[in-house]
């Protein structure tokens, strides 16, 4: 379970996050929605222990990544906004490396690598170096890297970015499997139909603040809308009046 309480973060005079609070429960997929620059990625970086909040705190299964980053990170599977693969390493070597960083070794590690490779249909390219990989292949490698240690919590920053239909479908399947096995899944996205299709819980962030949180019905009701996209725009930019069917 991931909990954020009044998170705030600024970079010198820029307030990236002012007040973000939400709860992402186990067994549910939580979507973080927000326009560019709204503070989604900064929030996810505070959850992953990369950034320390100025005020407030994030808790990963009741462990604060700001106070005990390594314990919190051990319970997280993280998928950053950029894949960041090593071109000279094979897919197997990537997964193996990150598995080792999570303390896996020997037969446990080998089994974990083989299982995740099969689950993400990586077996045919398992021994290929990642240089020249397609976006889909890179995404699956990065996802395998995040899942190899079977984390309780999965955090993904814009995971569908640049993916084709097949890639999105594969990703959707993995996230649903994780939710169904009782994991906590948090992801940020711009693709409303995709979000609406798989998320159980929605958190809308605007100007570094949580402006709405709840299930689909609660969000639609709060925005007095019948479509998520309209609700998102009304809640993100309250000054802009959006009527049904006008969203571009």
């Amino acid at each position, binding site marked *: 379970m991931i909990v954020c309480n009044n998170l705030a973060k600024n970079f010198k005079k820029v307030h990236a996050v002012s007040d973000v609070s939400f709860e992402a429960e186990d067994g549910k997929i939580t979507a973080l929605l927000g326009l560019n620059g709204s503070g989604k990625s900064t929030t996810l*970086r505070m959850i*992953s*222990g*990369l*950034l*320390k909040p100025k005020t407030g705190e994030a808790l990963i299964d009741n462990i604060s990544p700001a106070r005990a*980053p*390594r*314990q919190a*990170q*051990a319970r*997280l599977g*993280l998928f*950053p906004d*950029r*894949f*960041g*693969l*090593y*071109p*000279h*390493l094979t897919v197997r*070597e990537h997964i193996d*490396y*990150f598995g*080792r*960083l*999570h*303390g896996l070794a020997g037969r446990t590690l080998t089994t974990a690598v083989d299982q995740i490779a099969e689950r993400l249909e990586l077996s045919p390219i398992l021994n290929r170096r990642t240089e020249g990989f397609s976006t889909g292949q890179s995404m699956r490698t*990065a996802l395998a*890297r995040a899942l190899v240690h079977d984390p309780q919590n999965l955090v993904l920053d814009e995971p569908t970015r640049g993916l084709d239909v097949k890639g999105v479908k594969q990703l959707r399947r993995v996230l649903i499997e994780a939710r169904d096995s009782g994991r906590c899944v948090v992801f940020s996205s711009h693709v409303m139909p995709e979000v609406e299709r798989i998320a159980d819980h929605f958190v809308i962030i605007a100007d570094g603040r949580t402006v709405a949180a709840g299930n689909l019905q609660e969000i639609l009701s709060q925005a007095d809308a019948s479509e998520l996209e309209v609700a998102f725009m009304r809640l993100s930019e309250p000054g802009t009046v959006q009527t049904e069917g006008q969203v571009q």
Partner: protein
Amino acid sequence: MIIGALNIARKEWKDGLRDRRSFLSAVVYSAIGPIAIFAILNGLAAEVNNETATRLAVLGTGHAPVLVNLIENRDLQVFEIQDQEPIDALAEYDAVLAISESFADKLGKVQQAELELFVDRTKDAGMKSIERVRRAMGAVQSRYVSTRLISRGVNPEIINAIDLKVRSVEEKSVETWAISRLLVLFFVMAPFFASLSIAADMTAGERERDALQPLLMQPVSRWSIVLGKWIVATGIGLLGVTATILAASFAVNASPTTEIGILLYASAGAQWDMMIILAPFVGLVVALQMLIALIAKSYKEAQTYLSLLLFLPIVVAFAAVFKKEYTPDVGYAPMVHQLGLLQRALLDQPLDPALTAMGAGLTLAATGFCLFACVKTYQSERMLRG
């Protein structure tokens, strides 16, 4: 922390060896440098061996046959010419000595007799011939003066108030010192070249490829990350330095150094001493390179900074060590210490264990400081900015 560092090192080793740039930077210096040394030493030897006598054409030998016999020696080969302009003769000879008709007459009257030496100073042979003819004339002059003094009943030694006798006390020739300095600088620069590429790639390169963020998200301490990378880059640096020492020693030993008065022989013991001297220094160079590369946001930027760092050993060598007159000045400061000790090793002087340990200790302390600074840099949130 150790297991984490080993996991990082394992990955970096694999990654580094597959990176052509890292591999080349580790190997090329150790291959090209010794070839250059071999070429320099053999070139010097060839020059010495090919030293030929000056071809001196003499115009008017009949006016001073004794003089011509006296000046001919190992360095001066005399040729008689007649009815030829001195300038034209220079096309064939290194210098032309013109003896006037009045030469013998003036000599007989105990007057100053003039000779003319024609040379083309734009040519090496021409410049050399001036010195050689002067030297030969000096000997002839002494002889004529002595003869004149004796004929007047004067002891010729009275004109020599001071007799300066130069006695060389140095064990090694000037050339030996000069070449050993060159070699020492060459060895000290080896780690800067050997680990440059891998240090830049595993830090700035990783950041440029967006691979740093995923790494920092893992439950591994910053010390593990820094140590893991440092171990691998130091290992590659040590391989490069070892190859450089072995190849350069082979080049020195295979060169005809004694023919040019250079008494250098890099024995197995000297090679071992050089490894002991350089090993801690390699660690420091890598730590410094990592620290500098961490400031850069791209591989190319890091490469630029690290290329500028290559000037450091040259500046230190000339400012702190080589300014002393042919004496290896061994201080404790890193690099100064290694430069001095390396020169001693090359000149086959025994290493002082206490001095060596003290310098190595300071070098390791400086390495620790650089690694600590690397950890602090990795802990900084600035590292996540593009």
